[in-house]
């Protein structure tokens, strides 16, 4: 997304640009959860969106907390989400990126597919292009938009080796369902979509959660779990099993009943936030999108693609300026960093800099969801015995299971 955004913006500005894609087509190697928030990026690429192959606009947001045997959900249905231009869309990258690549090509970008960048060309200590197999291609600037595992940024010395603590893995299935079934099951009218987030026992106390997004005629169902937390478990659990257990929960099974799985995918997700952003530029190189660790999880929203698009556009602007001054040095490309700091990208990443620390708390993923679920369960349940007052039922649950540790922890919320 970052690479194509940079290419599209540069081509529109009349700059000669080559996109190198290692898959059979753009999007072949890309995976999203999937949802794109539109407001931050709409004006950055104003001509792009009218015909973009997006799936459904999200008209309903639901967050569920889960214990092993129950769940409590809270939903937002809002006119604001149903107003054009829409707030967010579900998206499938296989479709979107192929289309986006065509748009970049129409604007004048050159595209090669099935070609992997193996290394960087260097001249007098500066990045001077790329090496791909037998080929060497010279360039004034390389945009490293090679994803979360970016080996290009690593080779350029801009990024350290990945730390398990700063990454999670997402596992996803695309399950095909007739659009009518999707609309019936999720209470949607034509074109509307739903986004659902799940947290609690599904990750067994590990950082992470589940997600479900409705596409036109499929749903994207997945789970995200911290790599470090999986490593720290006394009793190892295989990551595909976590996904499968989530998928077979009654709350989920009913939603995808009769659907056919058409794709199984996985993707690493940056969870380190602002503190994990690498050096964004060097002599003859800039880093954008996932490669630059531009992912933001606040607990309520998970974002990445808007940052990728914006970073690509900012990179293009910095490169255009560098070209106008014929100076592609680190000092000149530092302009990319300034543009990013002025934009929502680094502002939002900075505002939520404490989110990773706040979310690094196993109680958020086991104890609290469990208490919420069990308290409500006890309040709702009518047994044979005469029922106690609702307030004393709730208070007893909270006092018994939480003590007062939560009071201290609740203060952490104000840092978000």
């Amino acid at each position, binding site marked *: 997304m970052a690479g194509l955004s940079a290419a599209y913006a540069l081509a529109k500005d009349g700059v000669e640009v080559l996109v190198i894609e*290692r*898959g*059979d*087509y753009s*999007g*072949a*190697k*890309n*995976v*999203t959860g999937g949802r794109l928030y539109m407001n931050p990026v709409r004006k950055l690429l104003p001509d792009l969106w009218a015909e973009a192959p997006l799936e459904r606009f999200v008209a309903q947001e639901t967050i569920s907390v889960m214990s092993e045997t129950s769940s409590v959900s809270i939903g937002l249905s809002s006119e604001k989400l149903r107003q054009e231009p829409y707030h967010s869309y579900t998206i*499938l*990258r*296989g*479709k979107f*990126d192929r289309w986006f690549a065509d748009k970049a090509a129409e604007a004048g970008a050159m595209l090669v*597919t*099935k*070609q*992997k960048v193996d290394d960087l060309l260097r001249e007098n200590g500066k990045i001077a292009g790329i090496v*791909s*197999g037998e080929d060497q291609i010279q360039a004034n600037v390389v945009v490293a938009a090679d994803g*979360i*595992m970016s*080996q290009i940024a690593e080779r350029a010395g801009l990024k350290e*080796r*990945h*730390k*398990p603590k700063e*990454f999670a*893995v997402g*596992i996803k*299935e*695309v399950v095909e369902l007739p659009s009518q079934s999707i609309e019936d099951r999720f209470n949607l009218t034509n074109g509307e979509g739903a986004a659902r987030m799940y947290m609690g026992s599904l990750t067994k106390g590990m950082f992470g959660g589940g997600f479900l997004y409705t596409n036109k005629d*499929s749903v*994207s169902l997945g789970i995200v779990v911290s*790599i470090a937390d*999986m*490593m720290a478990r006394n009793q*190892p*659990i*295989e*990551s*595909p*099993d976590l*996904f*499968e257990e989530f998928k077979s929960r009654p709350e989920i099974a009913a939603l995808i009943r009769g659907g056919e*799985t*058409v*794709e*199984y*995918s*996985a*993707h*690493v997700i940056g969870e380190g936030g602002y503190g994990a952003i690498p050096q964004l530029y060097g002599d003859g190189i800039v880093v954008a999108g996932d490669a630059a660790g531009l992912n933001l999880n606040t607990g309520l929203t998970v974002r990445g693609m808007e940052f990728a698009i914006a970073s690509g556009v900012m990179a293009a602007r910095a490169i255009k300026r560098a070209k106008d001054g014929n100076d592609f040095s680190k000092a000149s490309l530092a302009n990319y960093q300034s543009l990013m700091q002025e934009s929502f990208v680094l502002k939002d990443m900075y505002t939520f800099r404490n989110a990773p620390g706040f979310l690094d708390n196993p109680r958020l993923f086991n104890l609290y969801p469990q208490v919420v679920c069990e308290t409500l369960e006890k309040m709702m349940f009518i047994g044979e015995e005469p029922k106690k007052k609702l307030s004393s039922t709730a208070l007893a649950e909270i006092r018994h299971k939480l003590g007062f540790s939560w009071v201290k922890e609740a203060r952490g919320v104000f840092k978000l």
Partner: protein
Amino acid sequence: MSKADVKAKLGHDAIKVDSVKHIKVKQEVCARCKERYCIYVCPAGVYKLNKEGQIELDLDGCLECGTCRIACVKEAIDWTYPRGGFGVQFKFG
């Protein structure tokens, strides 16, 4: 879920297997590794222990996510992507 079940799921994906192995492990490091995180963190069941107690890789199903490389804190995994035009080709993504 067994490795066979994961294999069945991978059957939904279009994967062009590269004859050049894109991931290699340093068996001498793996032999001394007790944790073997790679075996269970991998979403595609690429890693398993063979009868001789060695780590064995089934790269045909690799989803190219990179989780193994991150989890292998002993740096025994020599990791890169398959060559251009090979590996998984996501249709939906």
